[in-house]
């Protein structure tokens, strides 16, 4: 093996975040190949659609959260500068109310509103429903990004950095957006986004799983876009998961899990494996950033 190749391999192995990203993709692709070989086609198609929908919605949540987090952090920054502190106090008070509502309750209420709109036939386009679902989750997730943005601004305001640039004639907005966020906080923001993507997948799957009970007697989870959560909530997937328990007491049944209970096992594995990999990627990325 030549030296440069060795060097490249060593460098890759030092970057655990890249290894975990690779492992994640490798795991998902291997699983997909296995499913292509052993899972029936209709189920395979459903799983593929569910993965795409879940990841797309989580990505939308992340994008919306970044946008709102950025806008709200700027609002906080400018409100703090006002002599009259009432608007700032009122703003923080409102934000804290959202913070005190458990995410699951808040999202459930907003999903209920979506259900109502679907029932009234006001919305029936699947993409709009998906977007509204992403908005519902983002409302309770963007606060984390907002906090990070505010923390980064505060950190640099404490140092000479901010004032020095102001003296140089750089506008406040440019300092915040370009110098603080883009040039000096990209890593922190990216790390937060990775973690947010993971927690969004968890929340989304949980909500969709709960929705299998239904949010209305007229609308069931069948009316919602197919996601990993509601696919896992289906009776055949649940039976596949029950088979894991059976295997604990009857280890000889283990092999059957990979052939006869593939749908439920695949979905459960995708959720758990994705959460694990995202956690590892986020931590390794942060460690590299700090070293």
């Amino acid at each position: 093996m030549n030296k440069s190749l060795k060097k490249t391999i060593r460098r890759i192995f030092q970057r655990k975040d890249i290894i975990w990203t690779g492992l994640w993709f490798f795991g998902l692709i291997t699983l997909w190949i296995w499913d292509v070989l052993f899972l029936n086609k209709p189920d395979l198609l459903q799983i593929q659609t569910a993965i795409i929908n879940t990841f797309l919605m989580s990505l939308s949540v992340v994008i919306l959260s970044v946008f709102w987090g950025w806008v709200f952090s700027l609002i906080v920054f400018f409100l703090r500068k006002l002599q009259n502190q009432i608007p700032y106090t009122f703003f923080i008070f409102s934000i804290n109310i959202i913070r005190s509502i458990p995410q699951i309750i808040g999202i459930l209420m907003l999903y209920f509103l979506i259900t109502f709109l679907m029932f009234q036939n006001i919305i029936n386009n699947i993409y709009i429903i998906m977007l509204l679902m992403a908005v519902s989750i983002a409302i309770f997730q963007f606060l984390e990004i907002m906090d990070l943005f505010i923390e980064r601004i505060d950190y640099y305001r404490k140092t000479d950095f901010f004032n020095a640039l102001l003296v140089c004639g750089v506008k406040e907005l440019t300092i915040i957006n370009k110098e603080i966020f883009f040039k000096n906080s990209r890593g922190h923001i990216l790390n937060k986004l990775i973690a947010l993507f993971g927690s969004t997948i968890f929340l989304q799957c949980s909500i969709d799983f709960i929705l299998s009970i239904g949010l209305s007697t007229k609308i069931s989870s069948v009316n919602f876009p197919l996601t990993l959560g509601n696919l896992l909530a289906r009776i055949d997937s649940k039976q596949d998961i029950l088979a894991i328990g059976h295997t604990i007491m009857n280890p000889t049944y283990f092999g059957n899990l990979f052939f006869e209970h593939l749908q439920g096992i695949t979905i459960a594995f995708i959720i758990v494996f994705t959460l694990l990999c995202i956690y590892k990627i986020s931590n390794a990325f942060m460690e590299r950033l700090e070293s």
Partner: protein
Amino acid sequence: MKRKIIEHSLSIIFIAIIFSILFVLLSQNKKKSQINESSVLAEEFKIDFIDFDNPLHTSILKETLNIFYNNNAADSLLLLYEIDLWRELPSSMQLSGNEISIEKLIQILIMFLKFVLVYILVLGLTYYGVQTLAVFRFVSNKQNKPPLLIRVFSNLKNLKKGISFLESLKIIIASISNFIKAVLKIVFYLILFSPAYVIAYSLKTKFDTDSIVFMIFLGVISNALLITYSQKFYTFLISESNKGYVETALVKNLNNDYSFKSILPSTLLQLKKNFPGHVFNHIFINAQHQYYSTIKEQAAYLITGLIIIEMALNIHGHLGYELMQNLLYQKYHMVLVAVFLIYLTVKATEIFVDIFIFGENKKYQN
């Protein structure tokens, strides 16, 4: 501190006012909603010659409904689906209207108390678990041991032609033991990252998943709560260990040996962790102090997790399940009461943590 208490109180009053307004609005619409689908469904049960448990009867009903709805199968199926859902409801929910009675209120308060009890227990257990896991990880990292799988390979590398059979056997046993440890670690990680409903359904055939003990177990072990917050505690430990006072302590000859001879594994498992004479004692105390404000976040995450468990597992007689059922059957008064009680739990935790942090800060003030 006063300001924080006022802020929390205002927030509670504000939400209480909003909920009261909603409550009144719902009561005004009561008459309209009295003719709801529940009562329409109840009419269906007056046909006493139909036994809904008899497949023949339900098939005949389905055929009749098909004729009635001009072969629109969707409408008849929907009605049958609603009847099924109605029959699954507890009788107390079937018979009552949209209003809230004292009996119902007491029922929901009992469920709430049960929820709070589970919440406090799980919060205590996870607080201990978070610290223990983080401390174990920190100490293990300080020991600079290579990862388990790398240890397996490096052990196997030592298998050379010249060594004796006994030595080879020792190496092989060490490799196998490290490999088993690595596999167990992966399984442990996968369990910690599993959503509660995946673990619960895996064990449903073997355990009573509706019991409070199982709920506590799920609350602690699942939903990535332990791993997420132990990572936060670990980050605080790392940042504290990089501070100047640690170096000063080392210069003053404080113990800095992280082997399990110096820091016994039993001390890591203690409820109140204490490492006298060791530099880690100071790192731990300061990291713990920083973590206090994260308890609010952990508590909110935990409440979300517990509600997910109750809702997803359909545990009858629990707050989350009842909230879901009341939402499903449009009994909004009950939904408002349940949501307000959950909100109060979060607020009570926030107030408690703020008072606790205030007290702790006072201790360290000169």
